[in-house]
């Protein structure tokens, strides 16, 4: 049981006073980020990334991942109290959370949401602890063709599982790939797509894109709604918490199902948002109280929150073991790893044991700390929400500018951020998903490299992607994911035909 030993060493690292301090700071910042409109998890981590450059990598990743947990928790607060999903994955939480709050059961809803989040995340971390070493051993057999197949699977899952029309997802994704290709070509060393602009030599940094697309774009969307902001009050006390906890074990089936859905959606990089919707939908169909969903059913809060957190946490598994992030925020964390000189992938588990297990241990502790922090501080965070948007908005814009500048100390990047912001507003309004775009910018170079190396090995034949069992399996999974909605539709059509016949 070498893993257990490693995990305990990890706990020893995560429990160092400095790391605990960083953890709490990260959670609090994360919840603030999750609560504020226009500052999402990905964007928040991107802005705060430069702050961690001077820290040791393990502390830095602990802080950044805790910001991520905090943001996941924070999203639930705004959804339940104000019917404003702070994050896309908490949209499903509003369906039953907000009605509960209106019925005066905000405390119950919040407790249920936070506890479910914790359960989901915990389940996913246990899964990561057990599975990560296995994946890492498997991944050692990976050549360029297998690597490309994993990227292929990642992007196909996006197309097949996303709620947006598939061709819009593809278009958004391909824009990301094209932006990633700009600048110096790493294989031949020649310039491409720069059209003579020296600023484009190094291509587009995805951090700038994240800050612009998610941060500035979100502010612009919120501006449309005007500056009016509805306030609200939240009270949460120990007796409500304890009472809700007594009630929760009744829903263990829903919890377990949501955990499994979340983990699966997190590993295949569909991410937290579809996971929460899927889990909510299934719970509604299966639950005996299904008809009551949408009117303030506690089960309707448990299902999406558990799945969203399980997915958000599970997304870190492919990031660490394969270098393929499962969500935009995981992609930003991956970018951080690369900046600190840590190359994610199977070798990370061999060469940087301390780092990997320190991170995994911090996931256990971070979620526990997070649960305590959010349960005790809800009124404070709700108060932040009552600060008018006309104060928050310029502060967030300035923060975005600082974040964009400090990535490369360049004011050109700040201008690029603004351009990305306007583009993000336009794309989001017209139904183009932004997450695949960002993932493609992050992974574009690596996917291309893997693709070209495989083709070089096979002298240009695409057959290399089906040349052995491992690579074919991944490619076929990818194709299934790509045509998932078509398959599903065909299946239901078959069933209805069988039923009517």
């Amino acid at each position: 049981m070498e893993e257990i030993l490693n995990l305990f060493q990890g706990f020893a690292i995560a429990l160092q006073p400095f790391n605990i301090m960083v953890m709490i700071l990260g959670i609090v910042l994360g919840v603030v980020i999750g609560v504020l409109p226009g500052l999402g998890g990905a964007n928040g981590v991107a802005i705060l990334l430069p702050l961690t450059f001077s820290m040791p990598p393990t502390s830095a990743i602990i802080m950044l991942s805790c910001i991520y947990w905090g943001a996941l928790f924070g999203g639930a607060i705004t959804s339940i109290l104000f019917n404003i999903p702070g994050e896309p994955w908490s949209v499903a939480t509003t369906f039953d959370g907000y009605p509960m709050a209106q019925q005066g059961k905000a405390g119950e809803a919040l407790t249920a949401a936070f506890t479910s989040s914790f359960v989901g995340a915990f389940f996913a971390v246990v899964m990561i602890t057990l599975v990560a070493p296995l994946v890492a051993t498997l991944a050692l057999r990976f050549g360029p063709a297998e690597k490309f197949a994993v990227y292929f699977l990642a992007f196909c899952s996006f197309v097949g599982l996303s709620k947006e029309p598939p061709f819009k997802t593809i278009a958004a994704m391909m824009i990301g790939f094209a932006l990633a290709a700009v600048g110096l070509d790493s294989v031949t060393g020649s310039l491409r797509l720069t059209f003579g602009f020296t600023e484009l030599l190094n291509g587009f940094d995805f951090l700038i894109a994240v800050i612009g697309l998610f941060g500035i774009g979100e502010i612009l969307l919120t501006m449309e709604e005007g500056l009016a902001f509805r306030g609200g009050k939240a009270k949460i006390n120990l007796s409500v918490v304890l009472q809700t906890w007594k009630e929760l074990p009744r829903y263990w089936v829903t919890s377990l199902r949501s955990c499994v859905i979340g983990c699966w959606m997190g590993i295949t990089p569909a991410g937290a948002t579809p996971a929460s919707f899927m889990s909510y939908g299934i719970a509604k169909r299966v639950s005996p109280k299904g008809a009551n969903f949408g009117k303030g059913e506690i089960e309707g809060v448990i299902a999406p929150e558990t799945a969203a957190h399980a997915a958000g946490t599970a997304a870190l598994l492919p990031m660490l073991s394969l270098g393929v992030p499962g969500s935009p925020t995981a992609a930003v964390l991956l970018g951080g790893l690369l900046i600190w000189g840590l190359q994610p992938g199977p070798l990370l588990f061999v060469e940087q044991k301390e780092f990997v297990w320190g991170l995994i241990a911090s996931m256990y502790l971070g979620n526990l700390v997070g649960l305590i922090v959010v349960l005790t501080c809800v009124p404070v965070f709700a108060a932040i929400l009552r600060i008018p948007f006309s104060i928050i908005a310029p502060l967030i814009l300035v923060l975005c500018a600082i974040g964009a500048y400090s990535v490369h100390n360049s004011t050109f990047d700040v201008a690029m951020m603004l351009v990305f912001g306007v583009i993000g507003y336009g794309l989001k309004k017209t139904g183009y998903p932004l997450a695949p775009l960002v993932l493609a910018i992050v992974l574009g170079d690596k996917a291309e490299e893997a693709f070209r190396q495989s083709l070089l090995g096979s002298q240009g034949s695409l057959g290399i992607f089906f040349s052995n069992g491992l690579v074919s399996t991944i490619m076929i999974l990818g194709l299934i994911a790509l045509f998932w909605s078509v398959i599903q539709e065909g299946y239901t059509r078959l069933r209805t035909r069988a039923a009517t016949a």
Partner: protein
Amino acid sequence: MTTNSSSNAGPSHKAVEAGVTTVIGLFGVLVIFGSLKAGIKWGAEGPGAGFFPFYIGLFIVGSSLINLWTGLREDEGNLFAEWGQLRQVLSVVIPTTIYVGAMPFIGLYVASFVFIAWFMRWLGKYNWLTVALVSLGMPFVTYILFERWFLVPLPKGPLENLLGL
């Protein structure tokens, strides 16, 4: 564009979507053009620099054509946004552009101060005391946090040089 002159008039969703899709398609054409210039043929190191982006460009153009086609078949009538809403959006975009444009010359701190003050006074209609507190406080906290604690240098202008910071 709708010619409806009621208070909630604005560009139609369909028209804007068609516009966005066309721009994306043109971007794809640009990518294809750039890739051809970089060379899509096989060389000594395997596929040339433009090989991969060339196909990416083809994908962009192809999916944009499909999106354009499905988009144009949608029903008319949905608004993209009301003109008033778009004005709100522009009232953020324009000052932010000035803010970003001024940053290399007057530094981040002064620019942020002016920007926050303008935003709060103009759009938020706050009294001068609140405006002054927030707009001076933010750059100050930023300075302590970034330059002092985390040692991240931010752009400075003539004022900072004068103060010797």
